[in-house]
């Protein structure tokens, strides 16, 4: 079984040591600036001169490039192709394919959108790689995020693979009793129906037990919750957060002013 379900890469780096909220705001500001900024090349510059260097600062460059190949490049290429072919504006036709035109304008637009998507996914990949999920949650809870909300998010992340494993067990059990799971698509879709009952109702029963289990450990206690992890929040963190907020506001203002 998997030891840990998250993108988190355990390292010691400046980026790892930053407060989780600072990293969250960093990721969010990179995304917002790439959207708001009126200059064409902003997303590209952010990717090359913010995200790539940050991978090295966070000492996760290898893991980052691996996930770039698996997730980011396929997603960005898909967006690029769609936009290049289906963007209706544009006069300068480069080539035609059937009824679809690829124009200079649509290519430029597609390149920008694809880079934006790349920036978005990479910023959050970087956040998840350098931030332990329980640290992020305990920091957000300390700042007033309701404990129940944090619990729902983090337990969903952990329970999904468990549900997957259980679905597999049920499928195997039904297969051994002659359920057809390998013929035509329609038949296979039909054979999913008997899976739903045991999986869903089984999970509902489990929910009650789990509710009892966490209740038995004071989940609804009215005390102010404490946290096992000490999540440091330095003055450098605070300065960085404000700086980022100011940068986002400036890019938003420029966007409104120039358009």
């Amino acid at each position: 079984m998997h030891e840990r379900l998250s993108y988190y890469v355990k390292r010691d780096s400046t980026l790892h040591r930053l407060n989780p909220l600072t990293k969250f705001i960093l990721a969010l500001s990179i995304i917002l600036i790439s959207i708001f900024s009126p200059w064409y090349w902003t997303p590209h510059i952010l990717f090359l001169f913010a995200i790539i260097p940050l991978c090295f600062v966070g000492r996760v460059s290898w893991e980052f490039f691996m996930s770039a190949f698996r997730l980011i490049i396929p997603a960005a290429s898909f967006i690029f192709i769609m936009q290049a072919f289906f963007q209706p504006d544009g006069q300068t036709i480069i080539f035609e394919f059937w009824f679809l035109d690829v124009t200079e304008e649509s290519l430029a637009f597609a390149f920008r959108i694809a880079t934006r998507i790349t920036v978005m996914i990479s910023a959050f990949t970087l956040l998840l790689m350098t931030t332990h999920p329980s640290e992020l949650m305990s920091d957000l809870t300390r700042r007033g995020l309701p404990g129940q909300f944090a619990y729902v998010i983090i337990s969903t992340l952990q329970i999904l693979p468990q549900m997957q494993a259980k679905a597999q067990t049920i499928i195997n059990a039904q297969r051994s009793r002659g359920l057809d799971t390998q013929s035509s698509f329609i038949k296979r879709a039909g054979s999913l129906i008997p899976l739903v009952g045991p999986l869903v109702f089984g999970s509902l029963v489990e929910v009650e037990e789990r509710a009892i289990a966490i209740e038995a450990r004071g989940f609804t206690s009215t005390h102010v919750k404490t946290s096992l992890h000490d999540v440091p929040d330095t003055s450098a963190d605070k300065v960085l957060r404000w700086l980022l907020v100011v940068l986002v506001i400036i890019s938003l203002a420029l966007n409104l002013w120039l358009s």
Partner: protein
Amino acid sequence: MAIINLQNVTYKYPLTDAPVLQNINLQVNEGEFVAVIGPNGAGKSTLCYTIAGFVPHFFKGEITGTVEVAGSESSKSSLHEWVLNVGLAFQNPFNQISGAKYTVFEEIAFGLENIGVPREEMRLRVEDALKLTGISDLADRSPYSLSGGQQQRVALTSILVMQPKVLVLDEPTSQMDPIGTREVFGVIRKLSEKGMTVVMVEHKVEWIAEFADKVVALHNGSVLLEGNPQEVLTSDLLTDKGFGISRYTSVARKAQELGMWKHNNLPVTLDEAVAGFKR
């Protein structure tokens, strides 16, 4: 002085007609180990939930009579205060894992975070609890990567770390293999020896005979028998009412009919049976 005191407790789940518990009177002294046995539907789990405060606070329904633990009354308390008096662990170890934590150490600290224990104290208490149940070596593992017996010990530890006055266990080994069962019972025995008051529902009669100070036999929501393990576990009444009994008792009873067992008391464990047949 009884630390657990149930007086005339009758309880009905919402949307059902018949009461699950009827007129239960049960006193458990401090440090005592009480085992509860009974066929399916006898109300064993409901009894556990009642002592642990989940009946009626969590399940609602109608309850009459009084439930007292360490001098305070369940109906006058709220559930999140009550769980500090009574710790509850149950069958499925997997469902007792919070799902919000990535290591065993964090998992055990979960309850202490909820009740607002300061960080330094929290670490000490988790470390002590891990040592008590002998799972310090699992501290950095993911709770989901453990075996059933290990998970159940994690569940027990995460309850113990809350320092309850009483421990209620609802068939803690029913989903364990023999190795897991031995691991879990080992921990429970150690706790009992250290003076913890334990109420445990259990089917494994031979283990009960070895552990318990007192056995309560529950049938159709009422107490059928109550007394020392030897007397209760070998009573004729149990076989008639569909209780699971020890195979050694069955063998000796058959032998008694054939005139091969010459003692008045029937055995519960292998050792008792061997000793009885030798003499």
